[in-house]
């Protein structure tokens, strides 16, 4: 039987110097948060953001996560982990906790925490920052930690399996369908971000294209030339990648080469779709694995560099705390502050997709159960800090410049003069000359209407890095940042397509058994084409959309991701209730209730808001009315029938997410109530206690 863990207060171990220290941290943190919230000056130093975030994270980690570890979950370091019990030297390997931390962080932090905050900066710096920091400490970190714990106690089972075992078959199905849909939307929207960064930019297109042969070369190197020498191949890849970034500058300068890499958005979308299909059907060693090695390396390196640069330079934030767009009239995406800031920033605050990682590779590596706190809660704290840095990088730009880069042409006008006039009229002065000079500095023809967050983040990062290296390198840093984001977006695109394909093969195998054989090549081709076709459709439509596509797709992604988080929290809540920890159920139930509130409100807005800018259905009927009355200009009139169809499709998806989440919540409440009443139900699927043979216990 389990050794009883002594119940201690999270405060009891504190001696008086520590008490004084933590009081100081609280006071400093509260002061910095106050400074951020109450500042009404022109600018504010980003050091306040770093200090406020660091203090909140420190307190959250030291006290709240300790409370969860010792009172709620009763982490037990004498209990053998799956890595110890099932050690197979491959999946299940007891690993140093810092290494697990690194792997887990690299797996959860993708482009999401960089893009969401950049888009949400249209409300001003304050709402997004508060949500990232508080949502992270009370929501996202808790979710990641508890799901990791649940999976640790269940031999590293996946979220879907745990949902099936703890809640019921419906739970498992909802989790699986959620993962497929979220992958499709995520890939489409990320593809759009890359396309918007590459359109009519030979430099960016060349650099991103160069990542493909570099990965191929690495793949062949690791398989045939020097088998298994991963570090050598990665170093080679990083060097070639840096050469490609600088080489792009020369491509930009030679007219004949320029034209080879100069494309409009729809053409680039077709390239990305074709690439996505090829990447998903070639063996993993050739493209996916080498690029994953490469992107992990670049990710950790660049994030560290950005953190050091921000800490050293303390750049000034020029965005106001709040903009007038909290009323819902924002150019980048429409909708009021509540609930849309919470939907726009998913990754960085709370992201359901993390539950897939916390219940995947990570629980199979932990040596000591007690380390779940540091890895689960801690890694998410770091991701949350990455999101704060993305917010800083977006808001150090002049607000006028930020809006000029991010606003779609359909809203501010396609002509530069028209766009700057519109943006200046909002009270964010910007001029054509300023934008041209900036574009020239960044080595681009234009920076207008590069919706999606990647380019404005890249401009922000470039201007921060160039403060250290000098302005001569601005263009190189800009394209480095674009390459860095594109690198892991392409990895996500490839990996996500494969995940959706496995689930599709599994599902279709019920009807046509041959399709269920994951290694049968015709099945691979057919199901990959289906999956790529599904996200490719959304991606291509996004490039045709006069509002830039991000406008409708990012909220859909946010809703999907938060709904998946709701599913994960349902599993966590059920586990707490069934392990007779019902008095601590608020730890997961409160974030769950909050998520249900914001996702349902956002979904209802996207479905039924009468404003065409916000509601999908209102937009569809507005377009049909104008189409019938022949009041649409020609390019829009030809696109309108397709846009109307897309609006209805998006509404259908939104409705599906909402129904899935609520059905699961009802199921969860039913299971919990039955348990509390003492009625028989599915037993807790926890694996029995085995004492660890390792020395730490």
């Amino acid at each position: 039987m389990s050794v009883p863990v002594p119940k201690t207060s999270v405060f009891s171990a504190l001696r008086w110097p520590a008490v004084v220290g933590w009081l100081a941290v609280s006071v400093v943190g509260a002061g910095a948060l106050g400074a951020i919230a109450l500042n009404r000056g022109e600018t504010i130093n980003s050091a306040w953001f770093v200090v406020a975030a660091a203090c909140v994270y420190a307190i959250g980690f030291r006290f709240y996560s300790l409370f969860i570890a010792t009172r709620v979950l009763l982490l037990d370091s004498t209990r053998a982990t799956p890595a110890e019990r099932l050690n197979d030297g491959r999946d299940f390997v007891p690993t140093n906790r810092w290494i697990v931390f690194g792997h887990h962080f690299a797996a959860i932090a993708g482009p999401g925490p960089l893009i969401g905050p950049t888009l949400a900066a249209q409300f001003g710096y304050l709402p997004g920052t508060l949500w990232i920091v508080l949502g992270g400490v009370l929501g996202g970190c808790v979710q990641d930690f508890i799901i990791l714990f649940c999976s640790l106690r269940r031999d590293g089972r996946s979220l879907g399996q745990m949902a099936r075992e703890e809640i019921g078959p419906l739970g498992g199905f909802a989790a699986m369908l959620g993962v497929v849909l979220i992958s499709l939307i995520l890939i489409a929207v990320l593809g759009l971000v890359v396309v918007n960064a590459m359109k009519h930019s030979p430099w960016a297109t060349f650099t991103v294209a160069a990542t493909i042969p570099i990965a191929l070369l690495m793949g062949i190197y690791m398989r045939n030339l020097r088998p298994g020498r991963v570090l050598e191949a990665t170093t080679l890849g990083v060097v070639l990648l840096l050469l490609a970034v600088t080489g792009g500058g020369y491509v930009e300068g030679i007219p004949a080469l320029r034209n080879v890499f100069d494309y409009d958005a729809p053409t680039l979308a077709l390239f990305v779709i074709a690439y996505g299909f090829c990447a998903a059907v070639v063996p993993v060693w050739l493209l996916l694995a080498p690029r994953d090695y490469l992107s992990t390396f670049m990710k950790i390196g660049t994030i560290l560099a950005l953190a050091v640069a921000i800490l050293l330079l303390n750049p000034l934030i020029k965005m106001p705390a709040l903009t007038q767009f909290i009323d819902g009239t924002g150019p980048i995406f429409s909708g009021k502050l509540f609930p849309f800031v919470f939907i726009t920033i998913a990754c960085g605050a709370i992201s359901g997709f993390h539950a897939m990682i916390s219940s995947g590779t990570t629980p199979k590596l932990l040596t000591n159960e007690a380390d779940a706190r540091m890895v689960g809660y801690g890694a998410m704290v770091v991701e949350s800090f990455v999101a704060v840095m993305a917010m800083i990088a977006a808001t150090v730009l002049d607000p006028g410049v930020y809006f000029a880069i991010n606003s779609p042409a359909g809203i501010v006008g396609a002509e530069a003069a028209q766009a700057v006039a519109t943006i200046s009229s909002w009270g964010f002065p910007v001029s054509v000359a300023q934008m041209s000079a900036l574009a020239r500095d960044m080595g681009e023809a234009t920076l207008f209407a590069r919706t999606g967050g990647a380019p404005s983040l890249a401009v922000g990062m470039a201007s921060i890095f160039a403060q250290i290296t000098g302005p001569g390198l601005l263009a190189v840093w800009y394209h480095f940042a674009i390459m860095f984001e594109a690198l892991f977006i392409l990895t996500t695109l490839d990996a996500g397509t494969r995940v959706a394909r496995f689930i599709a093969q599994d599902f279709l195998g019920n009807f046509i058994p041959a399709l269920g054989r994951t290694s049968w090549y015709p099945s691979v081709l057919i199901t990959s084409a289906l999956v790529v076709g599904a996200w490719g459709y959304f991606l291509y439509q996004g490039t045709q959309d006069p509002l830039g596509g991000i406008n409708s797709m990012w909220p859909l992604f946010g809703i999907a991701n938060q709904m998946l988080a709701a599913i994960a929290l349902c599993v966590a809540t059920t586990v707490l209730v069934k392990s007779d920890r019902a008095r601590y159920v608020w730890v997961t139930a409160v974030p769950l209730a909050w998520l249900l509130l914001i996702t349902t409100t956002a979904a209802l807005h996207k479905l039924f808001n009468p404003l065409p800018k916000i509601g999908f259905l209102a937009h569809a009927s507005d377009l049909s009315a104008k189409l019938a009355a022949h009041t649409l200009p020609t390019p829009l009139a030809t696109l309108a029938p397709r846009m109307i169809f897309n609006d209805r499709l998006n509404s259908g998806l939104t409705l599906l997410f909402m129904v899935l989440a609520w059905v699961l919540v009802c199921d969860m409440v039913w299971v919990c109530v039955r348990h509390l009443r003492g009625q028989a139900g599915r037993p807790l699927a926890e694996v029995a206690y085995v004492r660890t043979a390792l020395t730490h216990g």
Partner: protein
Amino acid sequence: MWHLLWNRFKQILRVLNGDDAYARYLAHWRILHAEEPLPSRAEFFRRETERRWNGIRRCC
């Protein structure tokens, strides 16, 4: 001193990067599977890459 630090740094890089996967497997194999034939480095990586990347590994 610097030499030590550099070696430590290289070791951290190797482990984070996954370069040491074979060495780790070797250690495991010696203890548990010593009677079975030992896969070569190339063979090990061929199988591992195939197995590891066919699943959910990365998030948004």
